[in-house]
């Protein structure tokens, strides 16, 4: 045998991928597209250069906003998950209201409520903090349900064993339950992260020059709309693949440690 069974499987998967990519390329090739306009603008789309005002733009800006929002969202999601599991009426009420509102209303509305609504009370937020806040609040609500399911999914025997050892509720949660819940929370959280990356395009309503904004603006000024949108799609796809690798690495590490 030239190759192990797994190696042969991987080779076949790669061939399937290659043929699908070729089919997609053939489909797109039939559009009469002219990608020369994309070449000069590509560094800007990637965010390798700053915009005329010296601000971040393109993929660099999208990635910054997404990572910052995800970090805050994880904290909010954990707080809301614990709140919903708590016996305190205030915590439960806050958590369920937060979940319901931020999952139930469109993200665009949330962004505008922060950007336009908050100034009515005094503070006038800048675009990037407002965008990160809105994305974090929205995705925190979704993550809270994922975390709650992961926490509830840990074997109840763990709670009993911890109680038998005389551990407090808080210590049990922190040192026994959460580490185990973490493993099953990773795949859906990874999916949410990929979704957040694409939702980050909504911050363009506040004037931020992220990927979709630049792609659409270049597309309209060069009258090559589809070429630029396809380029933006490919950039998002590559970024998502990066996130998928990150998730796979994390799952691999957890499997190695906990089996």
């Amino acid at each position, binding site marked *: 045998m030239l190759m192990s069974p797994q190696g042969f499987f991987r080779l076949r998967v790669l061939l399937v991928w290659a043929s699908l990519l070729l089919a997609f390329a053939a489909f797109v090739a039939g559009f009469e597209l002219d990608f020369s306009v994309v070449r*000069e*603008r590509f560094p*800007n789309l990637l965010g390798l*250069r700053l*915009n*005329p*005002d010296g601000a971040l733009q393109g993929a660099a800006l999208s990635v910054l906003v997404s990572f910052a929002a995800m970090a805050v969202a994880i904290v909010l999601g954990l707080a809301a998950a614990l709140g919903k599991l708590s016996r305190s009426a205030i915590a439960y009420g806050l958590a369920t209201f937060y979940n319901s509102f931020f999952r139930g209303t469109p993200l665009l509305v949330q962004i*505008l409520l922060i*950007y*336009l609504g908050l*100034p*009515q009370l*005094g503070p*006038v937020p800048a675009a990037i903090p407002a965008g990160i806040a809105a994305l974090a609040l929205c995705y925190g609500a979704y993550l809270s349900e994922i975390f709650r399911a992961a926490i509830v999914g840990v074997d109840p025997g763990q709670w009993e064993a911890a109680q038998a050892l005389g551990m407090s509720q808080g210590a049990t949660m922190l040192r026994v339950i959460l580490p185990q819940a973490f493993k099953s929370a990773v795949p859906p959280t990874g999916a949410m992260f990929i979704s957040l990356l694409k939702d980050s395009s909504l911050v*363009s*309503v*506040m*004037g931020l*020059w992220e990927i979709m*904004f*630049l792609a*659409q*603006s*270049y*597309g*309209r*000024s060069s*009258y090559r*709309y*589809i070429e630029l949108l396809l380029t933006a799609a490919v950039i998002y796809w590559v970024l998502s693949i990066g996130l998928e690798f990150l998730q796979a690495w994390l799952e691999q590490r957890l499997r190695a440690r906990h089996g």
Partner: protein
Amino acid sequence: MTFWMRRCAPLLLLALAAHCLAGETLDRIQGRKELVEVVDPDYPPFAFLNDSNHMDGFDVDVAKAVAQRLGVRLRIETPSWELVIAGHWRGRWDLCICSMTPDQRKAQVLDFVAPYYNSPAVLVTTAQNTGLQSIRELSGKRVGVEQGSSYERYLQKDLVIAAPDAKALSYPFNDVRIAPYANEDLAFQDLALGAGRRIDAVLSNLGTASARLDRMRGKFRIVGEPLYVEPNWVAIDKGDPQWSALLARTLAELKKDGTLARLSVKWLGKDLTQ
């Protein structure tokens, strides 16, 4: 003072202060030595991102001229159109030289300072569609427009032109079917498929249509004479009469010394600023 009065008094003062914007814009501009202008970033040749990643176009050049007159730098912001016409700019932006046509709804939250150019509305069809000579022949046919634009309202026979010398509009057509699009590019993409495939014509303004025709030679042509003309005004956030007066004076100067006319010819091919 009671506990609550001490807490609420500053908030109340803040709320009252928000209504006294007079002079605030000028102070901010003078202080930062910077004029912040908003444009719709996807509107060539009025405002668009050029090859070197800078905002360029007629609106941008007029704003640069205003900034130069005031002796300050220009910074361009590109929030979405809905945010601009919602008003309550909260000092984020100073003015909008952004091809805005005034109407009652916008006038509730914005102050319109002065008109700076006129937009003739024209019908565009494919170059092959040589038979079409006027909008009268479009009964039962589909015409593409940008959703929510004045062109859509014209086809709905519901357009009011906000100019003191505006004549009542005539609608020399019947039964034209409206095809709304999220933006003009999509309408023109569909028109490029061929007149009659998805739509038969697009109603748009002479400025953007000419620019498109120049870039894509031989694909489209303009049908007949302009159907009507809309004035475009410079807009600012409501409640600052000093800024409005200064801006009006600056624009009048630019008009008098021919700067506006020169820019109009540069970007639009002819002087539409009269």
